[in-house]
């Protein structure tokens, strides 16, 4: 037992403790009790109302959260994917003139191929043939071709 414990256990200290213990009990009045009952009843009613509101609000809140989650998990990634797909397509041809020129060259090669050898000759061969033959003009045909 410490020194303080010893002092607290002394007879004079214990006498004072008994004196404090013997103080008269205080009892609140009936008016006090009825006022308290009214306040507690008001609290209880408020608490019950909150519980009732929450009982109906909880499923609504739960459903809303579920919808938000569904959108976040299923809808948003799909839309992001489709946007990414669009971004992956190759860019449009920058010069419309070069595209037209390219298409026209392909057509000329096809026509040359058919004219020279009918089916079978590929445009590259036709192009080679043309490049070997003397070019008299810029025209597609030469006199030898026409057998004139």
């Amino acid at each position, binding site marked *: 037992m410490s020194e*303080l*414990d010893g*002092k*607290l256990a*002394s*007879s*004079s*200290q214990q*006498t*004072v*403790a*008994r*004196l*404090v*213990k*013997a*103080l*008269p*009990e*205080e*009892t*609140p*009045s009936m008016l*006090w*009790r009825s*006022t*308290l*009952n009214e*306040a*507690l*009843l008001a*609290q*209880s009613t408020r*608490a019950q109302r909150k519980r009732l509101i929450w009982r109906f609000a909880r499923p609504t809140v739960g459903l809303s959260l579920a919808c938000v989650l569904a959108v976040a998990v299923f809808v948003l990634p799909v839309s992001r994917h489709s946007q990414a797909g669009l971004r992956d397509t190759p860019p449009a041809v920058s010069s419309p003139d070069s595209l037209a020129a390219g298409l026209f060259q392909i057509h000329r090669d096809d026509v040359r191929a058919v004219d020279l050898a009918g089916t079978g000759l590929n445009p590259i061969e036709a192009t080679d043939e043309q490049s070997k033959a003397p070019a008299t003009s810029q025209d597609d045909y030469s006199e030898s071709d026409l057998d004139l």
Partner: protein
Amino acid sequence: MEMCIGDLRFTRSMQTDSASESALIDRCRKQDFEAFGKFVDLYQSRVFGFVRRMVPNSEEAADVTQEVFIKAFQNFTRFDGRSSVRTWLFRIAYHLCVDRARKQDRTPDQVALVDAEEGESIDLPDSRWQPEQLAVDSELMSVVEAAILSMSEKLRSVLLLHDREDMQYEEIAQMLEVPVGTVKSRLFLARAHLQNVVKSYLEIEVSK
């Protein structure tokens, strides 16, 4: 044998009381209005007595006691049973009393505490010091009440919680959030001050 049976009955009665209090507390946790009414019946006098001696004004003490029980009702769902329900309730009461005192900035008159180490012990040849006779000596009680009010709230709270409410040092330390040694020191000082006041009163009475 009878004593054994008596002890057994006593033990059973204690167990029944403990079980019934647990059941009452469980119902209060569910905000059962009727159960809480019984809870108020159990504790209203003790809480009011404590508050009445912490907050000198009667009307304020009544208001604060009501606030204690309203707060207890509101927060009963959060009572987790780590401390006893009594400790929990008196903790609410203590903090409300301190808040009320701070709002009013009520500082008790400076009272010179007796130097406890040099204080003389009370010699009790006087028959009035028999505890069972103290209850009838209302004048002495008034002196004691006045002496308690003259102390600081720190000493007063410890004195009332330990000597009047029979709380253990550890319970009080937990409630006031101070070490156990501080509780003991405050208790010693509070009793020493009371001892000094009562001794002076008795000396005056004897001299008459």
